């Protein structure tokens, strides 16, 4: 309790709520709370704040948790490799490390691929800052996004992969995508193309949806072209969240 103040301190309320007070002190605090409405109200406010904080903590950080299956498999493989030193004798002694090594290798490849895919959610600004051409709205809006879609030349695709240091790309794992889509005035240039993975949550298909939405918004006059170009070039994921009013891809 505060000096010259019959009421409980914040510290008393928090420690009591967290079960951190000595039993005698806790009993005194509980007894006070039974009779004191103002202190009960303050306790309720603290409870409400903690509830809000826990909800924020879990919502904010929980949304960033990647799936556990891959890391779990990697851990198991590494544990098996370490446990192999105490494995039974005979042919199993040779088999267990080999199996574990294979598992580690495959899990390692999975982790490396996942990490690289996550690294490529957005392009490197130094390589792909985005590039546009002079264009009018009426020209842009004459055709739909799908009508305007065209394949990136093989030589240019190869150059993009080289720029990003990808030498082992499976053909279907990435879309060599325009940062600023041609339907928003983007050009066929190494400065406007990057290998966008299909395997991530924020993948090439999701960006395609954003491109269609922005094209429609520009053509209906709801968003000006320069804004659309800037937003898709600087933070396409943020733009998606903004225009689809969602924290995750639909």
């Amino acid at each position, binding site marked *: 309790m505060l000096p010259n*103040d019959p*009421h409980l301190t*914040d*510290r008393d309320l*928090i*420690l009591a*709520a*967290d*079960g*951190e007070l000595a039993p005698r002190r806790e009993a005194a605090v509980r007894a006070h709370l039974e009779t004191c*409405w*103002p202190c009960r*109200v*303050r*306790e*309720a*406010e*603290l*409870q*409400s*704040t*903690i*509830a*809000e*904080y*826990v*909800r*924020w*903590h*879990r*919502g*904010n*950080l*929980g*949304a*960033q*948790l*990647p799936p*556990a299956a891959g*890391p*779990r498999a*990697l*851990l*198991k493989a*590494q*544990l*098996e490799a*370490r*446990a192999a*030193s*105490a*494995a*039974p004798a005979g042919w199993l002694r040779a088999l267990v490390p080999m199996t574990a090594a294979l598992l580690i290798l495959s899990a390692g490849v999975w*982790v490396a691929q996942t990490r690289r895919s*996550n690294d490529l959610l957005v392009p490197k600004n130094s390589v792909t800052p985005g590039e546009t051409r002079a264009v009018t709205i009426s020209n842009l809006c004459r055709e739909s996004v799908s009508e305007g879609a065209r394949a990136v030349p093989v030589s240019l695709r190869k150059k993009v992969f080289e720029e990003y240091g990808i030498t082992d790309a499976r053909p279907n794992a990435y879309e060599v995508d325009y940062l600023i889509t041609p339907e928003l005035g983007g050009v066929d240039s190494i400065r406007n193309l990057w290998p966008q993975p299909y395997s991530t949550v924020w993948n090439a298909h999701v960006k395609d949806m954003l491109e269609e939405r922005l094209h429609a918004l520009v053509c209906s006059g709801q968003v000006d072209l320069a804004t659309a170009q800037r937003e898709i070039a600087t933070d396409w994921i943020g733009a998606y*969240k903004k225009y689809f*009013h*969602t*924290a*995750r891809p639909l």
Partner: protein
Amino acid sequence: MVQRIFNMASAPQDSALQLPALPRTETAVNGSRASRIEEDVVALFDRFRSPLFRYLLAFRVGAPDAEEIVQEVFLALFRHLREGKSRVNLQGWIFRVGHNLALKRRLRAQRETAAPAEASADWSPGPETQAAEQQRYRRLQAVFRALPEQDQCCLSLRAEGLRYREIADVLGVSLGTVANSMERSLARLNRADRCGEGSWETSRRTYVAK
């Protein structure tokens, strides 16, 4: 209710946290013992991977680094158990090792880049969330990020279910420091939470004056 909320988020001291001791005789140190330890470690991974990951993210470790630290922690746990070391309060052990690994990694990153690692994602509420709630969360986020790092760590660890003594062990500080930190942090969060309705201090003065 404070207690109930934290208890919901917490992992009470139970058999999974305090594993039964394994025999340490020469014959017991064999494949089956290692296999049993392996199962224990995987079970603990299943239980604590998410809480530890969230804590590391709150500690401003990026998700890829956090994933690697989590792996290192559970491999270290395997070594710890295989050497027959203490099985008491493994929850606290896991967070302590994770915290120390995150600190090391941050120091290395600072040496290499002269800039601390920064968690990338901001909380983005779903469309179903009410506007007032979004504003409240943004305020909480801003206040949380403005807290001293030690206070952020204390709050995050408490939200993941650690008791004050365990938090003190993880961070290498005294019990009193943890209590002070909780008091300070909750007071700031409370003021932010009450923002718009009048500050908590104001309301308290009003109640006390009556």
